[in-house]
C-alpha cells in the first residue's frame, strides 16, 4: 500500500529519519512559516475548544447534578425544588433508542448485504445507495415534519394519540423512533457495507467451494467477520439517535411520559414523552422553562453518554482498516 502515513508506528519515514539535512522553519519563506504557525494554531485551538466544552460541562454537571435527579420523575411545577428529576427523559431516550434500533438494524444490515452481495440489477443497487445518500443529507427537521405528515394519515392513526374530534396528532414514540431510525441508517449502512467490502473474496470463494449457498455464506462466514463493523455502526447510530433534538421536539416531546390507549406495551409506544435532548432544550432559556441548572445537569448526563459511545466506537474502530479512524466520526457515506 503506497498511501502516505508517516506516523504509523514502526514505519520509519525516510524524510523524517534524515534529520541532519532538513531545513529548519527559520530559513523558510515567510508564507510557509505563516502556514506552519496557522496549522499548529488551529490544531491546538480545536483541542482547547473541545477541552473547554468538556471541562465546562463537567464542572456544571458536578455542580448541579444530584443522584436523586436520576431516579425522580419529572413534575409539572414552576418551582425548581418541586419540578423533580429527569427519570422521564432517561426513559424516553432509552425507549427511543430501542425503537430506533429495532427499525434500523434489519433495514441497514439487509440493505448493505443486498447491495454488496447481490446488487442485481446494478442500476437498482445504485438507486438504493443514492437514496441512502439523500437520507444522509436530509436535515433532521425535514425528517421530523415528514414523520408528522406520515403519521397523521388516517390509516396510521393506530400508532399515535387521537384528539377528541377524531383528528390524528401523529406524535408518538413510534413515530419519532421510525424517523430516528432514518437518522441512524446512513452510518450503520456505511459501516456494514465497508466491512463487507473489506472481507477478502477468497473467504467467499472457499465457502462456495465447500458447496455453501450464498445466503449460507452470508450467515456463517460474512456476518461473523463483519461483527465489529456492525457494532461500530450501531454505536454511531445510537449516538445519532440520542443526540437528536429536532425530531424529538416535533414528534414526541411532552413534559412527562404519557401513555396512550391500548395494551400495556402498545400504549407506551403510542404515548409521548421527553428525552434528554428535548429536556435540555425545554429547560434552556430557548424553551419555555427557565431552569438552566436542570438543563446543565441533563446535558452533563447526555455528554457522558456521548463520551461513552465515543470510546466504544474507537474500540470497535481499531479493528477496521480506517487509517485515522476519523471517517467513522464524520459518519460519511
Amino acid at each position, binding site marked *: 500500500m503506497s*498511501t502516505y502515513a508517516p506516523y504509523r508506528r514502526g514505519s520509519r519515514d525516510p524524510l523524517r529519519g534524515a534529520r541532519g539535512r532538513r531545513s529548519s522553519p527559520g530559513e*523558510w519563506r515567510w508564507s510557509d512559516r505563516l502556514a506552519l504557525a496557522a496549522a499548529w494554531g488551529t*490544531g491546538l485551538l480545536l483541542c482547547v475548544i473541545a477541552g473547554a466544552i468538556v471541562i465546562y460541562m463537567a464542572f456544571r454537571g458536578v455542580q448541579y447534578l444530584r443522584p436523586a435527579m436520576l431516579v425522580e420523575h419529572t413534575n409539572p411545577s414552576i418551582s425548581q425544588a418541586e419540578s423533580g428529576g429527569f427519570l422521564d427523559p432517561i426513559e424516553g431516550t432509552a425507549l427511543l433508542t430501542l425503537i430506533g434500533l429495532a427499525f434500523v438494524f434489519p433495514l441497514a444490515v439487509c440493505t448493505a448485504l443486498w447491495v454488496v452481495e*447481490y446488487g442485481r440489477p446494478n442500476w437498482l443497487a445504485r438507486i438504493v445507495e443514492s437514496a441512502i445518500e439523500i437520507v444522509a443529507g436530509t436535515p433532521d427537521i425535514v425528517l421530523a415534519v415528514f414523520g408528522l405528515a406520515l403519521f397523521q394519515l388516517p390509516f396510521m392513526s393506530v400508532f399515535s394519540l387521537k384528539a377528541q374530534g377524531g383528528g390524528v396528532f401523529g406524535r408518538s414514540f413510534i413515530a419519532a423512533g421510525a424517523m430516528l431510525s432514518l437518522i441512524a441508517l446512513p452510518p450503520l449502512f456505511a459501516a456494514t457495507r465497508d466491512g463487507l467490502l473489506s472481507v477478502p473474496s477468497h473467504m467467499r470463494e472457499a465457502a462456495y467451494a465447500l458447496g455453501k449457498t450464498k445466503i449460507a455464506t452470508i450467515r456463517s462466514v460474512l456476518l461473523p467477520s463483519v461483527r465489529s463493523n456492525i457494532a461500530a455502526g450501531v454505536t454511531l447510530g445510537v449516538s445519532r439517535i440520542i443526540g437528536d433534538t429536532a425530531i424529538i421536539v416535533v414528534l414526541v416531546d411532552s413534559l412527562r411520559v404519557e401513555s396512550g390507549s391500548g395494551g400495556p406495551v402498545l400504549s407506551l409506544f403510542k404515548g409521548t414523552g421527553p428525552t434528554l435532548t428535548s429536556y435540555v432544550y425545554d429547560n434552556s432559556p430557548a424553551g419555555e422553562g427557565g431552569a438552566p441548572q436542570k438543563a446543565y445537569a441533563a446535558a452533563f448526563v447526555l455528554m457522558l453518554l456521548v463520551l461513552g459511545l465515543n470510546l466504544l466506537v474507537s474500540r470497535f474502530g481499531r479493528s477496521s482498516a480506517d487509517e485515522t479512524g476519523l471517517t467513522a466520526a464524520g459518519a460519511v457515506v
Partner: protein
Amino acid sequence: MLERLRAPWSDRRAELTLGAVSLLVGVAVVAMIAFVAVQAWPTLRHNGLSFFGSGGDLKEQFETMQNAGPHPPASAYHFRAWPLIWGTLIVTAPAVLLGIVVAVLSSIFIVELAPVRLRRVVIPVVRLLASVPSVIYGLVGILVVVPFVLEHVISDSDKVALQDTVLLNGTGVGVTIVILTIMITPIMIALICEALLAVPNSWREGAIALGCNPVRAMLAVTVRAARPAIVAAAVLATARALGEAIMVSMVGGATNFAPRISDGLTFFLEPFRSVAAAIVDYHEGIGAPALKSALYTLALLLLFSAFVLSVGGYLIKLPMRKYQVRG
C-alpha cells in the same frame, strides 16, 4: 409455515427478501419528497415564486396564518420567506468559508505536523467535537457565549442606535457563525484528512527532493491533489449547516428580523431566524392549515437544497477518479 421459514433458505428467496427490504429505503425517500411536496402545495400555489421574495412583516404573516382557522381564506397563505432565507445564507456562507480554512489547516496539522503523541489526542478530539449533540452546543451558546457578548461586546450606543428596529440581546449572527463553524469543521477534517492520506507518498517525496520544505510540499502538492475532496467536504458541511435547526434556534435570537449589512459591524450582533429554525420555532402552530403549508414549503426548500448539494457533491467527486484519489 414456520417450518418453511426455518428450513435453509434458497438463494433466490434470500435475494428477493433482502432486495425487498432494501427497496424500502428508496420508498421512504420517494414518500418523504412526495409528502412534503403535497403539504407544501397550497402555499406554493398561492405565492408562486414570490415566496422567495421579500415584502411585508414576516411576524404579521406568521400570525395571520396561525389565526386563520381550519379553513383559511386564500389571503392567509400570503408568505414571503426572504428574511428566513437571508438569515440562513448569512450564517451558512461565513461558517463554511471559515470552516474550510480551519479544516484544511488542522488536517495538515494532523497528517503532517503533529508529533505522534499529540496526534493521539487530536484525533479523538475531532471525533468528540463531531459527536457532541447540537443541543449541547446550543446550551453552551445561550448560557455562556450569549451573556458574554451581551456584557462585553454590545455597547449601549449599539443598543440605542437600533432600539427602534430590533432588541440586541446577545444572540445573533456572529455567535451563530462561530458555533456553527465548530459544529461543521470536524466532518470536513475527517474527509480532508482521508484525502490527504490517499495522495501517493511519492508525489510529496518528489516535491521535497526538489527542495520544497515539508509545509510547502504539503500545500503545493498534497493539498492541491486533494482539492476535490476539500470541495466535497465543503458541500457536505454546507448541507449540515443549512439543516441545523436547534442550535440556530437557540442562539440565533429567533426573531423575524433580517440583519442589515448596512449596519456595519453591528450586523454580527443582530438576531435573525433561519429556515430550519423557523420550522422548530413554529411547529406548535402546525394545526393551522395555512401555517402548516408554509412550514412544509420551508422543509421542501431545505430538502431541495440538500438534494442539489448532494448532486453537486457527486459531480465534484468525479474528477477525483482522474487523480486516482479515493474518497
